[in-house]
C-alpha cells in the first residue's frame, strides 16, 4: 500500500492539478454558454428579423461544425486575425459558444412552452414586453430549462477533454503525461474516470437542488 502511494502520489498530484484546470474550464465555459444560450435563444424569438437571422446563424454554425475544429479556429486562426488569445481563453470561447448554441434551443423551446394565457395576463396587468419576459415568462421557463441545462453542463465537462489538443494541461492531458512517463494506462485513466464521474455527479446534484427549490409550490410538482 505504501509502495503504491510512494510510486503514484506525485503523478496523482499532477492529475489533480489537471482537475483544477478542467473545473475552471467547465465553470467559465458554462458561464459563457449560459449567457450565449439566453442571448441567442431570445434572439430567435425576437420580432426583428435581423436578430432572428443573427441568432439562427450562430446556432446553426456552432451546432453544425465540430468542437474540435472550433477550438483550432479559436486558438490558431484568431491570432492570425490580430486577436492574441491564450489557450485557456480559446478553450473557454470554443466550449462556451458551442454548448451555448445547444442551450439557445433549450431557451427558445422553454419560453415557447409558456402558455398564451400568461402573456394575456401580462397585457391585462399592463406590463411592458421586457417586464413580461423578466418577471413572468423567464422565471417559469427557467424551471423547464434546468434539467436540459444540467445535461448540457455535463456534456461541456466531458467536452473539456479536447483542449488537451491545444496543449492545455487539463485532466486528460495530465493523464496522458502520466501514462507516457510511467507506461501505465490503467492507473491514470481509472483515476480520471472517477474524477470525471464525481464532477458530473456534482453538476447533477446542484441542478437537482436548484430544480427542487424553484418548483416548490408550483402546479403539478407538489410533493
Amino acid at each position, binding site marked *: 500500500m505504501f509502495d503504491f502511494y510512494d510510486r503514484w502520489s506525485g503523478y496523482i498530484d499532477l492529475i489533480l492539478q489537471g482537475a483544477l484546470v478542467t473545473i475552471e474550464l467547465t465553470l467559465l465555459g458554462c458561464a459563457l454558454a449560459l449567457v450565449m444560450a439566453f442571448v441567442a435563444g431570445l434572439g430567435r424569438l425576437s420580432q426583428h428579423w435581423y436578430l432572428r437571422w443573427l441568432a439562427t446563424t450562430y446556432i446553426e454554425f456552432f451546432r453544425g461544425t465540430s468542437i474540435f475544429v472550433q477550438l483550432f479556429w479559436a486558438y490558431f486562426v484568431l491570432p492570425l486575425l490580430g486577436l492574441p488569445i491564450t489557450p485557456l481563453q480559446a478553450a473557454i470561447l470554443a466550449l462556451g459558444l458551442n454548448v451555448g448554441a445547444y442551450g439557445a434551443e433549450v431557451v427558445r423551446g422553454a419560453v415557447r412552452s409558456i402558455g398564451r394565457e400568461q402573456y*394575456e*395576463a401580462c397585457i391585462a*396587468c*399592463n406590463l411592458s414586453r421586457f417586464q413580461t419576459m423578466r418577471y413572468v415568462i423567464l422565471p417559469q421557463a427557467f424551471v423547464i430549462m434546468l434539467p436540459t441545462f444540467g445535461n448540457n453542463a455535463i456534456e461541456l465537462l466531458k467536452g473539456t477533454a479536447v483542449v488537451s489538443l491545444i496543449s492545455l494541461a487539463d485532466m486528460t492531458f495530465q493523464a496522458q503525461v502520466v501514462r507516457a512517463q510511467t507506461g501505465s494506462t490503467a492507473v491514470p485513466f481509472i483515476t480520471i474516470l472517477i474524477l470525471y464521474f464525481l464532477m458530473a455527479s456534482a453538476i447533477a446534484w446542484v441542478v437537482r437542488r436548484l430544480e427542487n427549490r424553484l418548483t416548490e*409550490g408550483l402546479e403539478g410538482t407538489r410533493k
Partner: protein
Amino acid sequence: MPDAIIEIDKVSKRFGQLEVLKDLTFNVAPGEKLALIGPSGSGKTTILRILMTLEQINGGHIKVDGEQLWHMPANGGLAPANEAHLHRMRAKIGMVFQLFNLFPHMTVLRNVMLPPILTQGVRKEDAEARAMELLDMVGMAEKATAKPAQLSGGQKQRVAIARALALQPKVMLFDEVTSALDPELVEEVLNVMRRLAEETDMTMLLVTHEMSFAHDFADRVLFFDGGRIVEEGPPDQIFTNPREERTQGFLKKVIAAGQRI
C-alpha cells in the same frame, strides 16, 4: 346619459373567414354595470378581448375614456395605435379571466402587488399595504403567502379579482369568471363581485352564463347573437319580457338547462 366612457362604433372582427362581430355599436356610461349574454360564439367574449387589446379589430372605432383605443391621432387623421399608445390605454382597463391566469411562480401577495410596482411606480410598502387591503376585501388575506397551486378555483379567481383591482382601472372586464369553477365555488366569487358593484363606481362589463347573477348585477343587459346585439334593455325586461324571438329562445334553453333567471 352622461358622456360615455366606452364608445364602440361599427366595430367588425373576423377570424379568417368567420365574421365574429358585425358593425357592432354600443356605448357604456361611466359607472354602468353591463351584462353581455348570448350563446357561445356570439361575439361577447371577443368584444371584451378587443377592449383589453388582446385582439385587434378589422374595422370601426373604439373610444375609451374619450380617447381612441385602437387608433391614435396622426397628421390630422387616425393611424393604427402603436405599442406606446396601447400601453397608455391599457392603464384604464382591467380584466379578470375565465381561467384566472395568475402567475404560478409568485405568491398570492406578489401576484397582487407586483403589477402596480412595475407599471405605476408605486413604492413597495404602499403596494404591499394596498394588496393586503384588497386581499382582505376578497377574503384571501390569510392565503397571502400561498402559491396559486395551493388554492381552490374560487380562491384563485378572488385573487385574480384583487390583482385586477390593484391597478385601479376605470373599466373592469369580467370574462366568464365563474365558468371554470365547481358549482359550490361559484357563489364566493359572485359575492365578491356583488360587493364591488355596490361599493365602487367602476364601470363593469360582464360576460356570463349565470343569468340570475346578471339579473341582479347589471343595470343593462345586451343579448348577443351572431356577432350582433339582438336586444338590449334593463334586466327585468330582458329576462322576464324579452321582445325578440331569439332572446326568448335562448332564455328558454337556459331555463331548460336548469338555471333560475
